């Protein structure tokens, strides 16, 4: 078999390319590339983090209790860090597929970018959840019992329940974050890793 001739004979019909071209140059189609989706997810995350940060700032003026203020204050610091980190990641994000990188470099770049995004999500989960759980629990308890924070926390079993909440919910939220990231990008990451491995072999 003449391989080159057989290859040239493959898929000779141009299909729908011709009709797509006009829509492409006039930006009528949305991109479905993982980098575009990741970029969009990162922007949405950032917007929500800003909204939550503004909400927390407002709460700091409303809540008179120093202990809850302290917990939400730490949470606010994590949110501010998440905003800075997210913006840094967003700036370093090149959504377009490179026309200058080799296939190997481009696959590695995208693999690293997705891993970085997943690590940011996991770190935010670990930093934010303990303080939001402790702050929310104490604030809710105060509102429900009518006690101040210290009296509420001194109530028998409350400290134990709070510790259980943190010990159960923080790892749970962390693993749910990891699981969701893997659900969305896990198979794609494995495929990228496999292709990178094949080329390096």
């Amino acid at each position: 078999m003449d391989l080159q001739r057989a290859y040239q004979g493959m898929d000779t019909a141009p299909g729908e390319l011709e009709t797509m071209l006009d829509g492409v140059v006039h930006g009528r189609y949305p991109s479905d590339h993982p980098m575009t989706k990741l970029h969009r997810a990162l922007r949405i995350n950032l917007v929500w983090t800003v909204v939550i940060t503004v909400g927390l700032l407002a709460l700091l003026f409303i809540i008179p209790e120093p202990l809850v203020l302290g917990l939400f204050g730490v949470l606010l610091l994590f949110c501010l860090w998440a905003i800075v980190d997210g913006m840094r990641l967003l700036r370093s994000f090149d959504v377009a597929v490179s026309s200058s990188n080799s296939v190997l470099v481009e696959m590695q770049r995208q693999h690293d970018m997705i891993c970085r995004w997943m690590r940011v999500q996991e770190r935010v989960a670990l930093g934010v959840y303990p303080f939001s759980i402790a702050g929310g629990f104490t604030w809710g308890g105060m509102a429900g019992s009518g006690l101040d924070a210290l009296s509420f926390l001194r109530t028998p079993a409350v400290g134990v329940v709070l510790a259980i909440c943190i010990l159960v919910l923080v790892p749970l939220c962390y693993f749910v974050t990891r699981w969701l990231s893997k659900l969305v990008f896990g198979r794609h990451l494995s495929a990228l890793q496999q292709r990178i491995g094949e080329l390096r072999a």
Partner: protein
Amino acid sequence: MAEEERFLQLVREHQRIIHRLVGLYAADKDERKDLEQETLMQCWKAWPGFRGDAKFSTWLYRICLNTILTQKRRPQVVQRHDGLDQLPSASDDPSHRQDDSERLHRAMRQLSETDRAMLSMHLEGFDHAEIAEVIGITANNVGVKLHRIKNRLAELLQAH
């Protein structure tokens, strides 16, 4: 506007490259359409960076492969066709040439995705140095891998 026209003209001239390449990877008709659309979009985005010091076909190949191999794709159902060897061998008869193209297409789809990329470039007429530059490995490595890929292809074409 002139740039847009130039882009459209070059893509039209080389559209078979995209069509053939996407056909080697897409799992079905819908995915083929999505991949072609995404590849064209990435080409258009990257177009301002095309300086013309490289061949357009090399530039196009790089973007096509970078898009296809980094795109989230549906799992491919490996189609094992019995009787590949019973198809007629190559001759100057156009219907036999079509059969050869189909046999090659089926066999190539059973190669790994990166092997498919290198073999398609080779069959498109790129030399080892050009393939090495696009793929990101050394020309020697391309030679070694292509030798292995061709052996595997021969097995696939004969053994089913």
